[in-house]
């Protein structure tokens, strides 16, 4: 008991005396845990909202699409794929299907074994909608004002369909930027936006197989096969009026099964018959997983980002821990001199860091929990938001475990080494050597540095003294550069991709991705700033004696500060350069559909240059502070 109290008291005193480094440590770990929490919380997000939408709209278990034709070219060279295009699509037929055939097919489906209810067939017109100067393709489903027995979209603004009125699907309405009461035209005919609704029977705009994404519900060729077709609902007479010879109607039948889980089996059993009216059957699970693509897509952005952020945090912590070892070594010596065992010594050092890690984990969890709703509104199409249910005990456990491991991993080695150094050398290793180890000697670097101007001389020699720390610095810069290059690669693909979206609408997927990437970039940059300042401060501490001596020998404070800043930039440049191939590789891994994307050289050069400049500027602050410290006390330290 007494030992615990002693350890506690020592830890408390140390934290009170030097709160600065402790705060930095907490910040670094908090950033990592917050990002990690965000990633974990978002995992379980969308399935629930889809279920809620399904329940609220009485969503179908199977959607059957009938009477599709081959591709019909229309509009400004934009290839339109009618909804049920698939490997089993019937050969392009020239003759339209009769209503009798449709009714027969619909009846057959509704009588198929396992089907409990059905609604439809609803006619679907492919049209061109114009709103606010924007043009888009739309599939307008003809409905009656009365509610259908299966799949009644839930109106969230305005009212349901009426003569001359159109109800837009929510994401489509967002993309067009129209609201209730606005005027739009469908194939030239004026319609008034009567309402906005959500459905579980279709996908949020711009739907399906876009890039970067997961699996594709419909096999569409090419990496940029975004369908970019919106949904809307109008009255049945209005829908039939929109049909033309070039764009005949297709029909939708919604089915409810006795066993919803068997929908995929049902779809493969009954779909894809080689008849002219062959319906394409889509089970609800496919819709669900595709609708989750939006958030999964975000996840594919978040996960590598979270890893990057985590790695950077570990790098920061390691540098910080190394910097603090200077102070520690002397305390270790004192502790041992008054009789503590190496075990106690290691315990005190670890206890402090673990305590800080726990505090940081709690802070990170709180931040992640608060931020998750902001980040994860699961595509506007679905009803419902992620909330507390996603924040499970396992999430908390994982985050805390990670924080502890981070703190442990980066302080274990220095703690053991500090505990093992002999008491005498620990006491003697005050400001003279500022560390448990004497600096390394690199004759070639020393000879090389002699030919350089003074700041570069100092910088290179400082780097040569602590090669391990230089390596850590380079690694952390490489991690950031990797993130930045990956973001640049994403932006490159966005540019390429918007070429395909010639109609000028917002691509909410791209918007979300960009938002996510922005958030991640901000987190990465913040961590890098933290890291750069910590590394510079650690160098200032380590170089205290060297700086004092250099100034005593006649170096100006500005030269000394420049030297310390140079010591940060020298490992940063190769790190930034390394980030280029790593970033390209990371993006290729995270978004496999795109292949290897290389951002333009000017962007990359700007990234490398910018990183180096930022590191130099950030290092200048602690460097200037350190270079202006009075010299006498440091040089007199040995005289009592």
């Amino acid at each position, binding site marked *: 008991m007494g030992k615990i109290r002693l350890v506690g008291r020592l830890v408390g005193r140390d934290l009170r005396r030097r709160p600065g480094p402790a705060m930095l440590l907490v910040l670094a770990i908090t950033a990592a845990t917050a990002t990690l929490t965000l990633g974990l919380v978002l995992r379980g997000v969308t399935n629930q909202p889809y279920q809620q939408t399904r329940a609220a709209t009485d969503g179908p278990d199977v959607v059957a699409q009938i009477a599709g034709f081959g591709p019909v070219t229309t509009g400004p060279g934009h290839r339109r794929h009618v909804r049920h295009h698939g490997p089993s699509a019937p050969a392009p037929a020239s003759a339209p299907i009769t209503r009798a055939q449709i009714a027969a097919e619909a009846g057959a489906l509704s009588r198929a074994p396992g089907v409990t209810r059905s609604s439809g067939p609803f006619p679907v017109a492919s049209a061109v909608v114009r709103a606010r100067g924007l043009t888009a393709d739309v599939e307008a489903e003809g409905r009656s004002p009365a509610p259908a027995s299966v799949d009644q979209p839930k109106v969230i603004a305005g009212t349901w369909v009426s003569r001359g009125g159109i109800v837009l699907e929510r994401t489509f309405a967002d993309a067009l930027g129209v609201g209730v009461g606005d005027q739009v035209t469908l194939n030239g005919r004026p319609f008034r936006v009567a309402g906005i609704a959500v459905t579980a029977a279709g996908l949020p705009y711009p739907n399906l197989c876009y890039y970067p994404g997961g699996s594709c519900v419909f096999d569409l060729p090419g990496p940029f096969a975004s369908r970019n077709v919106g949904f809307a609902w109008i009255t049945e007479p209005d829908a039939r009026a929109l049909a033309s010879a070039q764009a005949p109607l297709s029909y939708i039948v919604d089915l409810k099964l006795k066993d919803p889980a068997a929908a995929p089996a049902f779809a493969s059993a009954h779909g894809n018959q080689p008849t002219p009216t062959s319906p394409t059957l889509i089970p609800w699970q496919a819709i669900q997983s595709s609708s989750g693509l939006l958030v999964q897509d975000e996840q594919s952005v978040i996960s590598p980002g979270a890893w990057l952020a985590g790695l950077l945090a570990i790098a920061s912590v390691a540098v910080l821990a190394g910097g603090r070892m200077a102070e520690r070594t002397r305390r270790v010596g004192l502790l041992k001199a008054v009789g503590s065992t190496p075990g106690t010594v290691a315990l005190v050092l670890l206890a402090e860091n673990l305590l800080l890690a726990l505090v940081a984990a709690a802070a990170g969890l709180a931040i992640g929990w608060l931020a998750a709703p902001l980040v994860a509104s699961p595509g506007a199409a679905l009803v419902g938001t992620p909330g507390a249910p996603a924040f499970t005990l396992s999430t908390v456990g994982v985050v805390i475990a990670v924080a502890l491991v981070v703190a442990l991993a980066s302080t274990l080695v220095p703690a053991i080494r500090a505990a093992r150094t002999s008491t005498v050398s620990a006491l003697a290793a005050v400001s*003279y*050597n500022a560390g448990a180890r*004497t*600096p*390394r*000697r690199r004759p070639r670097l*020393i*000879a090389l540095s*002699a*030919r350089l*101007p*003074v700041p570069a*001389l100092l910088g290179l020699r400082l780097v*040569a*003294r602590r090669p391990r720390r230089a390596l850590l610095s380079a690694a952390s810069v490489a991690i950031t550069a990797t993130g930045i290059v990956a973001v640049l690669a994403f932006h490159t693909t966005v540019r390429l991709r918007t070429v395909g979206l010639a109609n000028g609408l917002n691509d909410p997927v791209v918007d979300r991705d960009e938002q996510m990437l922005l958030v991640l970039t901000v987190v990465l940059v913040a961590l890098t700033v933290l890291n750069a300042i910590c590394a510079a401060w650690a160098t200032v501490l380590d170089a205290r*004696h*060297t700086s004092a*001596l*250099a*100034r*005593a*020998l*006649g*170096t*100006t*404070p*500005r*030269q000394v500060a420049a030297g310390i800043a140079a010591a940060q930039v020298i490992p940063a440049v190769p790190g930034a350069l390394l980030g280029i191939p790593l970033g390209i590789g990371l993006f290729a891994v995270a978004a496999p559909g795109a292949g290897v994307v290389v951002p333009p050289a000017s962007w990359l050069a700007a990234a490398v240059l910018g990183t180096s400049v930022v590191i130099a500027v950030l290092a200048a602050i602690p460097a200037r502070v350190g270079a*202006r410290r*009075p*010299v*006498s006390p440091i*040089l*007199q*330290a*040995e*005289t*009592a």
Partner: protein
Amino acid sequence: MSDTGASVLRARGLRKEYGKGAGLVRAVDEVDLDVASGETVAVMGPSGCGKSTLLHLLGGLDRPTSGELWLAGQRLDRMGERALARLRRDAVGFVFQAFHLMDELTAVENVELPALLAGRPARTARRRASALLDRVGLADRARFLPSALSGGQRQRVAIARALVSDPQVVLADEPTGNLDSQATVEVLRLFEGLHEAGQTLVIVTHDSRIAATADRLISMRDGAFIDETRLTGGSTGNLGSLAGLNGLT
């Protein structure tokens, strides 16, 4: 031992204070000092009397609270950090009690460091450093690391380093504080040699052997000069009697 040379170092009313109010500490209290070119001046006093602080003030490593200070004809107490650094670089050589050599540099690399920091080309600096190491008798140890040198050898390397920029004055702060008696003799010889070559030296010490090499000895207590002795000239007494050869009275 000419004391007719121009004054290399001059201080008037030099003061250095720390703290304020009741906690005010006068480390250096109204010190006046003149050091002529080629002179060796020793400052002796008990620990904590402020002699190290005084030396740091004289070398521009620390700023006085008040007073005037001239070094090599320039007014130090009014200079900015940058100008002070330049002055230190060109006109002052420091020797410290703890040597303050860089552990990862060899002897010759340590000695050439001030020249490199002053921007001299690498080859010139190396040549000068080698010559100086030869002068202090360590030419054969040029490539040794400090850890492979004895205390006396390390201090001699430090003295060589202090000389590399051909300074107007060498300031030594307890140069033999960390040395045993044999190493002290090594350093003693060096100082005598420097003195003979006309180097101006200001030494702070509590070792009377080192102090005895000086032309002038100043005693310091509580930050102020209390006594000054001219050691050159005057009787040295009968050495024989010192050894007890005249029989006991």
